[in-house]
């Protein structure tokens, strides 16, 4: 099932859909180590996310995948190592500066504002792209109103793309889990990212819902041509979507490469996939 994510000839070749490479830089993770008291969550991990590719990070529970995301998005500070996004060194930057570089992420555990409407949650994604401050918002200056209108349109467009149009006015807290997961994705898209990081986007969804989400991710990459970094335990989905896979175990990288190679790596099977039959059963 190596290349099933490719559209089979009815569309343009994917290369054409990918934007000029200079706009989307590569993400280079070099020897990143993260230690917590008495625990090494990431141990000298390196990998590179090629521009415009879908790169999956997999591994057993507690392997350090989310920790890796947290380092990339500035939530955790790496004990050592470097992360470069184009020319920018990320390890010393606070989260909001990293966001400003066009790195967006979703959270393994939903992190939306339950009281706010879907629209407001999505508008928050526009924070880095908008300017209105206390004064201009408080005084409702024309510039602030223009800005809000313009970005509101884009939010509506993204909501339609993700299939949230009907929910825009609803407070997020009242919506089912599956919808909230999509709002997470939409909010990240609203940041107009150059790199999109998805932490277990289909956890808690059933088969049908998973497939929809997978389609959505493919469509994002098709439409925007951005790089996507994906953490997921659903191996079927990883195999279908990813161009490259990095496997972590106890914070160490144990494999890296194209999905079909990684899938058959004995080390990966031992640490993560287990006997093939079980994998099949658990994640069809």
């Amino acid at each position, binding site marked *: 099932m190596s290349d099933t994510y490719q559209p089979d000839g009815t569309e343009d070749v994917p290369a054409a859909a990918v934007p000029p490479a200079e706009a989307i830089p590569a993400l280079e993770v070099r020897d990143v180590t993260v230690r917590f008291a008495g625990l090494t969550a990431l141990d000298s991990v390196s990998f590179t996310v090629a521009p415009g590719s879908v790169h999956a990070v997999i591994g057993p529970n507690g392997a350090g995948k*989310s920790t890796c995301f*947290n380092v990339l998005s500035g*939530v955790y500070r790496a004990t050592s190592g470097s992360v470069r996004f184009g020319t920018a060194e990320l390890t010393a930057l606070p989260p909001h500066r990293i966001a400003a570089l066009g790195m967006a992420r979703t*959270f*393994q*555990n939903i*992190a939306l504002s339950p009281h706010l409407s879907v629209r407001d949650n999505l508008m928050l994604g526009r924070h880095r792209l908008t300017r209105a401050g206390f004064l201009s918002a408080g005084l409702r200056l024309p510039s602030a109103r223009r800005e809000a209108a313009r970005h509101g349109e884009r939010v509506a467009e993204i909501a339609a793309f993700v299939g949230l149009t009907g929910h825009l006015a609803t407070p997020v807290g009242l919506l089912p889990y599956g919808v909230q997961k999509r709002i997470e994705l939409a909010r990240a898209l609203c940041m107009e990212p150059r790199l999109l990081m998805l932490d277990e986007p289909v956890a808690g969804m059933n088969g049908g819902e998973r497939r929809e989400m997978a389609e959505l991710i493919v469509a994002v990459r098709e439409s925007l041509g951005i790089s996507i970094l994906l953490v997921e335990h659903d191996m079927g989905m990883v195999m279908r979507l990813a161009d490259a896979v990095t496997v972590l175990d106890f914070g160490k990288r144990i494999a890296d490469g194209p999905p079909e190679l990684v899938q058959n790596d004995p080390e990966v099977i031992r640490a993560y996939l287990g006997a093939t039959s079980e994998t099949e059963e658990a994640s069809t």
Partner: protein
Amino acid sequence: MITFIELLVNGISIGAVYALIALGFVVIFKATEVVNFAHASLLLVGGFIIAKTHESVGFWPALLLGLAGAAVLGALIEFLVIRRANVVNHSVLAIVTIGVDIVLTTELTRQIGTEVLALGDPWGSQVLHLGAVNIPLARIAALLAASAVIAAFLLAFKYTNWGVAMRATAEDAETAALMGVRRGRVSMGAWAVAGALAALAALFMCIFPTPGLDRTVTATAMKAFPAAILGGLDSTTGALAGGLIIGVTESLVSGYQGELVFLGRGLGDVAPFLVMIIVLLIRPAGLFGTRELARV
């Protein structure tokens, strides 16, 4: 030097009283995550019952009555108010306790009226002379009682499931219920215990060197706030440490007021808060408090 020791000893003994009050805050915070502003009225009730009954039944039975009465009141507050408040935000609950406190304190001060009530304690104005240092006997009793009570709580939290149940309920009442915890019992128990602690604190607050119970007693409860926070709102050890630090600070600063006059008069009252702020700047969850940690 004598003065210093005397001030220090005095500070420690006042600190013991603050520690008892702070421990009341801690118990309730552990069980319900509520900062209890109604603690002052629990103090008042405990003291009031002791004062009103000691003449007819004698001091020790009166003390028991006071402990029981304040415990019942605490349990009632939990049962009638806290349990029924279905709110997510704990600062909202703190406001409810302010409401409760206003009601109770108003009524109690009306009952107390203009009197200064004696509590009939056996220590009277006796003073222990240790060399040149004088320590009121009542204060020694306070120190002993506070140490004993706090040690008991430390052990109870450590070796019984009570503490676990309490913290589980405070953090997530629903899930705690799924563990079979009887939420009502746990938090009601905590409030009752806090009430009893308040009564005990009230006793030591209202006997020698202070003249007795009257309506102004509630103001002292405020000083236990910095004590509780400084130690860490969810820590028993913290309550003791916080109480002692505040007591000693206050005593030293007032005692050396003459030398500190360049800082302004009346420093004794703000010093506890200044100490608290400095501690919090270094340790945002107090000296022994559990640090709030979040991950995504």
